[in-house]
């Protein structure tokens, strides 16, 4: 088995807010991330797939195809968008780095031919990232 990782980048706005809580509670828990005017990050996405090397092509997956899938399923939907306001899965889910990793897994699962999704890693910034392995 080989693990293969492809990176992609997107820049998005978001804020942290739980509608079930008072404004004070949101600020207490989420701090400056609760500013309703939003703020943004340059996210780096790393998608790792697992598979066997095809004896003819020498590939686990066609990297160009994987790049196109990431572009179609994630980047075109998240990039230069407000995650809370414009991306449906975050209408009722706080767009934390953890939840973004989970949402991207859900978008990609079953869509990568010849390989199994192994890990989704999302960097919110170089010093902070979340990993999701599909553990429900």
């Amino acid at each position, binding site marked *: 088995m080989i693990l293969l990782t492809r990176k992609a980048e997107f820049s998005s706005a978001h804020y*942290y807010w*739980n509608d*079930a*809580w008072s404004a004070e509670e949101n600020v207490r*828990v*989420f*701090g400056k991330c609760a500013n309703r005017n939003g703020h943004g990050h340059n996210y780096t996405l790393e998608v790792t797939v697992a598979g066997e090397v095809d004896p003819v092509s020498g590939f686990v997956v066609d990297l160009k195809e994987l790049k196109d899938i990431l572009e179609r399923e994630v980047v075109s939907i998240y990039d230069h968008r407000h995650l809370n306001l414009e991306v449906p899965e975050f209408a009722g*889910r*706080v*767009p*934390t*780095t*953890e*939840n973004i*990793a*989970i949402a991207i897994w859900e978008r990609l699962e079953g869509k990568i031919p010849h390989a199994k999704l192994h890990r989704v890693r999302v960097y919110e910034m*170089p*010093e*902070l*990232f*979340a*990993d*999701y*392995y*599909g*553990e*429900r």
Partner: protein
Amino acid sequence: MGPNAYLSRRYRLSASHRLHSDAFSEEKNWAVYGKCANPHGHGHNYVVEVTLGGRVSAETGMVCDLGELDRFAQTNLLARFDHMNLNTLPEFRDAVSTTENFTIEVYRIFQRFVGAKIERVRIEETSNNSFEYSGRAVTGEAERL
């Protein structure tokens, strides 16, 4: 509670150390540790990457409170090790201050963090060397610390 995910945070600290084992002769120390045995010590800009695992809270969308983690790291990691000589600290009185031992020590420290379970500690000593510890032996069995 939501799915299980892992959150990683990187902290930077600068410290000096010297690799030396009292169990070895002077010659043997130089043979084993090379320039790292220099008695005056040397230093590194360490990057300490801690990975916490747990269920993503449906309310907060988080594995753990980042502010709480940063405060814990400030008190228990940065305030203790940043701009220190590792060899002078009690943690390294009986253990050589290799980054392997430092990584195990940091894992042990974050076992006390109550916000989420420590999954892995990875320390970059330089951009070419890094060390990881997940609390497990090579066999995969959990180690008692």
